[in-house]
Every structure is written in C-alpha cells, then in structure tokens.
C-alpha cells in the first residue's frame, strides 16, 4: 500500500491506551485465529491497561539476528518464512518489547492476519483501542483530537 507521494505505508497494530479497558478480547481473538495469542494485555497499577504486540519496526532487531533468513524486511514490512525458521530462539531474545514468543509450534509473532482485510484483534476490540494504520495517519488523528480539545478550552475559558 502506498500514500499519495508513492511512499510505502507501514501499517501495524497500534494501541490507544486511553481507550483500552483490559478486556482481553484481542488476546482471545488472536488465540482463536492463530492457536496462541501474539498480543499481550496487562494492567499497570490498577489504572491503565497496555496491550503489547509486534510494532513491525522499520529496522527490526529480530530480523538482524535471524541468520537463516526466515525473517526478512523490505521497505519496512517484515515477512516470515516458517520453512526457513530453525526455532533457535534468537529473535525472541532480540525483541526490545518481548513481543515475539516461541512455543512448540515455532516462532509466534504477529503476522497481521494476512487472510483478513483488517487483523482480528483490531476488528474485535470493543473499545476501538487498537488501530490498524500507518503511523503518520495515527499521529495526524491524535493531533486533530488534541486540537479540538485545545479549541474547547479556548472557547470556554478566556475573555479574549
């Protein structure tokens, strides 16, 4: 997928923590789709819930350590070839976010549900906390919301 200037978009599943309600629907949906969950939700100090999943890093450290070439990266997007995977565990140890897991079935890493238009975790999220988009679009959305909020405070508060 490309944007207007022909740059390749790098879509990934991102989380808006302010909307996450720790319901674990994404985990269960992922488990149903892939046999084991590749997204991890947990609550911080009883007040905030943060889902952690693969960020699809643009220069991914997991790809750097994958010596048999099972993980490869082109223009940001990561592909995984399970035939080449040796199950060595190095990619698990190379992920700064602990988002890659290894179990008896091999490496467990978010594949963004290639058979679906939108990944299962994003569709199922009751509170729309998970977003499937390019980071630029998300940042723009965040900016727009913040702008509206600032506008509100200006409209309500000042004599000016």
């Amino acid at each position, binding site marked *: 997928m490309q944007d207007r200037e022909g740059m390749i978009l790098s879509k990934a599943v991102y989380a808006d*923590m302010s909307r996450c309600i720790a319901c674990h629907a994404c985990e269960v949906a992922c488990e149903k789709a892939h046999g084991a969950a590749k997204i991890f939700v947990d609550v911080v100090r009883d007040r905030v819930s943060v889902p952690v999943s693969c*960020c699809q890093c*643009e220069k991914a450290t997991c790809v750097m350590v994958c010596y048999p070439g099972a993980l490869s990266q082109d223009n940001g997007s990561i592909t995984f070839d399970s035939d080449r995977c040796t199950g060595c565990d190095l990619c698990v140890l190379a992920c700064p976010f602990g988002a890659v897991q290894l179990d008896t079935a091999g490496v467990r890493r978010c594949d963004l549900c290639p058979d679906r238009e939108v990944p299962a975790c994003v569709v199922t999220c009751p509170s729309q906390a998970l977003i499937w988009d390019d980071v630029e679009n998300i940042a723009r*959305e965040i900016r727009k919301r913040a702008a509206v909020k600032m506008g509100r405070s200006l409209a309500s508060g000042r*004599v000016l």
Partner: protein
Amino acid sequence: MKEVLVRLDRCVGCHSCEIACAVEHSESKNLFGAVTEKPVPRKRIYVEYSPEQMIPVTMICHHCEDAPCVSVCPTGALTQDEISRVVTHNPDICVGCWTCAMVCNYGMIGKHKERRVAIKCDRCPDREVPVCVVACPTRALAFTEVEDFSGSIRADAALTLARGIVGGGTP
C-alpha cells in the same frame, strides 16, 4: 528556561511556521531550493483545524518534563537535555517502532518517509530563536519564559476589559 508557547487566539492559520520549519530543516535552507530537494524537507510543527470551534490550532512539541516519548524509546534514539529539556532524536539509532508516536498526546512525532524513522521538533539548535517563532506574522508563537507569557495574556485581557468600560459595554 524559554519555551515556544502558542497564543491560539492570535493564530490565523497561515501555515508560515510550517513552511519555515521545513525550509530550516532542508539542505539548501531556502524555499526555492527546498521544494526541489530529495528527500523532501519535512516540517515538525503542524497547523491543525478544529471543526468544532472552526479555528486553526497550532500544534507544537512541548518538550514535556520527563517526556513520555523519551522514556518508551528502547534504543535511546530520543534523548532529553537535562537543563534545556529539549528532546532530540537521533535517526541513526531509531528502529522505527513508533512507540514514541503512540504515547505522544499531541501527535508530534512524524515520519521521515525516505529513511523510515521518526522526525520531531529539535527547537532549531542553530538558531537563538526557533524559526517558527520568527516566521509567525501575528505573534501567535512566542519564545519566552512562561511567566512573561502569562503576563502578556494578562495585559491583553486587561486591555479588552478596559475597552469594554470605555466603550460602555461589557467585554
């Protein structure tokens, strides 16, 4: 410490700050050179429009105290100066995980499309006053101490009130 601060009531949405920012961060440092450059120079300040109040809102990086973007960066690509609190980004060690973009409440982390790394306000290290402030024609952007900024708002408010009395109406 001086900050870049916004007077939303003065912003007319002319986008001068955005253009100046992109030019400042170009190779040629002038508008005519910048438009033809590859990679295209990127801005780090954004003029958004709030449809609810129908006003333009200038969004700047606040270089927050204990900045969330810095604390989530696993590789140390984002760092914060202890004294000036300016958050700077080192593209060479950015892995493009975009965690910083997710925790920024103001959406101030952009993407350098060619290098696929984060890009953000560096408060113009080569200048005494950031270029966006210099470029703003309506003085909606100010580079000043917070106290002085509040003082200017107070002064303006007082003026408005006074005009109301002189004019015989309520402000």
